[in-house]
């Protein structure tokens, strides 16, 4: 499941930053056929996973397996959240065949915050804003080729997002 095109990761990252046409031509050469077809459109809401307390249980409920750390999962999150109610977090990956991206906040009342299905043709990159109850680890999971990869970053929270 490793990258077969040397230029691929760099190229994709450039695109995400809104770079120019050179990069676009590069992407045009991608072998789309490698990406498995997107599952049914009527995906069920993973209620059970959102009810789990800790991050490990939530990952298990959602995927039924565990993740291994990978430097091919990139997460951008602030060092200190200006306010726990609105913490901007973005996740992207240089892995191929990404089918989902999930973000967990370890010590929130329920760790699972958001999970995104990435169909064929959608880039493995997402940005969102999450609530954090307190200083804790944020875990990003990328599902690629049926395996789970993760990265973790601690975000300091001085004003909790769960207060009044």
């Amino acid at each position, binding site marked *: 499941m490793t990258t077969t095109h040397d230029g691929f990761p760099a190229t994709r990252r450039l695109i995400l930053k809104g770079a120019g046409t050179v990069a676009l031509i590069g992407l045009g050469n991608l072998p789309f056929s490698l990406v498995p077809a997107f599952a049914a459109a009527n995906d069920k809401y993973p209620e059970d996973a959102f009810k789990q307390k800790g991050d490990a249980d939530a990952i298990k409920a959602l995927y039924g397996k565990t993740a291994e750390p990978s430097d091919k999962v990139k997460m951008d999150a602030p*060092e200190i959240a*200006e*306010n726990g*109610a609105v913490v*901007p977090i*973005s996740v992207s990956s240089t892995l191929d065949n990404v089918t989902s991206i999930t973000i967990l906040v370890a010590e929130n009342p329920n760790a699972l915050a958001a999970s995104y299905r990435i169909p064929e043709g959608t880039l493995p990159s997402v940005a969102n*804003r999450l609530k954090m109850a307190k200083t804790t680890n944020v875990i990003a999971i990328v599902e690629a080729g049926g395996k789970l990869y993760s990265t973790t970053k601690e975000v300091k929270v*001085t*004003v909790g997002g769960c207060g009044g």
Partner: protein
Amino acid sequence: MRSAIHLASAALALAMLSLGAAQVAAAADTPDPAADAKAFQKFFTDKFPKVKLDDFVNGPYSMNEDMHRQWEEKEQFPPYDFSLDLGKEMFAKPFKNGKSYADCFPNQGIGIRQNYPVFDEKEGKVVTLELALNRCREANGEAPFSYVKDDMAALTAYMAFTSRGKPFDIKIPSDPRALEAYENGKRYFYTRRGQLNFSCASCHVQNPGERIRAEVLAPALGILNAMPIYRSEWGGMGTISRRFTTCNSQIRGVPLEPQSDEYRDLEYYLSYVSNGLPISGPGARP
């Protein structure tokens, strides 16, 4: 901890009550707003040599890099967008009598926010934009809005938006009452109040860029240019009135009524000393 220190000093001051009134030499200096504004702006540019004058309107975001990045991310699709759209809609919608907000303001109300507050020489008082909006409503048979809630924030958000980039241009006419209002506003700004014994200046002049408990304090210079604001802490929009009243209660003082003379004068002073800095509202704040 900080509050404890201030409290102790308040108590100490009280203990000295019997020693007689404070003997601050009342220097009979004549008010000079233009010199005040110059000194005020110089104070901040000296204190933060890396921050450009116009950037002070971005409040705490101008002082801290990590926060600046979070702000940039938020500005991509700012949380005040809904309020701004609502304000635009409200502003365009005629009252029951067929008139509209545009009829109450110069230039139909577009691109004029930087001129408020104005000193009304007929009334002999300061008139803020929020006050003018409610007077407009009442003159046209509509009930006034709450000064601290969403409708007023939406309207002022839209009006600020039409003035973005225009420098504050507050005038003090040669009317002794105008000068008095300005001086009263200045006194309010520097007067310690509340159980914490803080003045507006304690936080926003002496400690901008510092964290108090968790928040990074905004500099007083340019603080009103960004109003109204979507505050993450509030989970919503707030007007200048909301900003003033919450500041007062945070220092454990009982807030005054929104648009009371003191607050109007305070807004007059604080806007005047930011003359020349661009309107950046509506803004987003932590």
